[in-house]
């Protein structure tokens, strides 16, 4: 029990809304299958402390999830909201700085992952020019370039072909070997 990173047991945030049970250790990859986007939205919102816990047990890194205050969980989805910033490179630099990581290292890693995912063209685009599908791929690459204790990915293989999906899978495996845990949220098994 002590070595578990995240424990969600019988969590209920409303009378008829239940969060799936998750027991996750460092270096593990867990898939949470959701019926629709709303379920994924509720799960992520709960993980980031936006829903108060009604019943059940929610622990993260040895403390109650409600008391969690440090930035150890990473989740980026640019397709929903993003701060207004000139270009992607500036965004990565600011984000790496805000997370206290080495900026040049993160930037190089991000470019490498973006190339592997076949979305290098996004570097030349502004945020307004990007389509939602591009923003999703870029979000996955940003999450993977800044490893944290727990990383949440929402539909990471959305809009990717076979080779690119394989590359992203290898990256996830590589980062998980280093000790980060992953929660992958997806609505259909087909996309996985």
């Amino acid at each position: 029990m002590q070595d578990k990173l995240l424990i969600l047991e019988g969590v209920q945030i409303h009378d008829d809304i239940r969060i799936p049970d998750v027991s996750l250790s460092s270096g593990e990859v867990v898939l949470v299958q959701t019926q629709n986007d709303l379920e994924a939205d509720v799960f992520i919102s709960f993980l980031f402390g936006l829903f108060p816990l009604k019943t059940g047990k929610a622990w993260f890194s040895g403390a109650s999830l409600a008391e969690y205050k440090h930035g150890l969980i990473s989740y980026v989805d640019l397709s929903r909201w993003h701060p207004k910033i000139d270009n992607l490179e500036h965004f990565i630099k600011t984000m790496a700085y805000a997370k206290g990581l080495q900026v040049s290292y993160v930037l190089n890693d991000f470019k490498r992952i973006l190339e592997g995912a076949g979305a290098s063209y996004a570097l030349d685009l502004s945020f307004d020019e990007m389509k939602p599908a591009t923003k999703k791929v870029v979000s996955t690459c940003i999450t993977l370039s800044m490893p944290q204790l727990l990383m949440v990915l929402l539909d990471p293989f959305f809009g990717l072909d076979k080779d690119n999906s394989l590359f992203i899978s290898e990256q996830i495996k590589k980062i998980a070997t280093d000790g980060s845990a992953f929660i992958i949220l997806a609505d259909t098994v087909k996309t996985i």
Partner: protein
Amino acid sequence: MMALSFILNDVLKRSRAFWFAPFVLFVMAFSVRLLPLFVKNSYVIYFINMGILFLSVLTSILYLQYGVKKIVHDASELKYEAIFYKQFGLGLNGLFFLKLCMVVFYFLIFFVMISAVIWSLELKYLLLGLSICSFFVMMRVIALFFKMPHLYYLGILFIVISLFYPLYILPNVAFVFRSGSYKVILYLATYGLLYLLTALKLFYFVWREECIGWI
């Protein structure tokens, strides 16, 4: 607090007019003092000055409303914004406090810049600023609460209508102080402050509810 770099970036990059507006107003208000240097003293100058002052106040109110709307996003964006900043360790309370600081800072830039030039009207303008600021915050709450974003723009209408109110009806400040009825001003100022605090409190509750979502 490293997330502050993101928030500042966000607000700075929202629009050029957002930060440029106070300087435009500064020049407009300053032109009232500069005009007598170029134009011979006549009765016309008073009308021109009046027109410029009226325009500067009107545009400052429009820009302030626009600015507050830029700092506090739409209801649909609030939740995802809160999630984004949460990963830097910035909670709901901290985020709200930073947003509040920005609204106050933006409000100060506007009204200090105008009042710094128009010395004689300094007090009036700051009080006007305080009441307008709290009014905007209240209108934002009502718009968020009833999920009717267009309701927010009714505020502009009220303020613009109030600009046509004949100012000579208001009591002369010097007369009020000499006659000892300054207690009325203190009472009104306290009432205004309470109104502002209540508006902020309500705003916080509605904002938190919007961040949490539909539950």
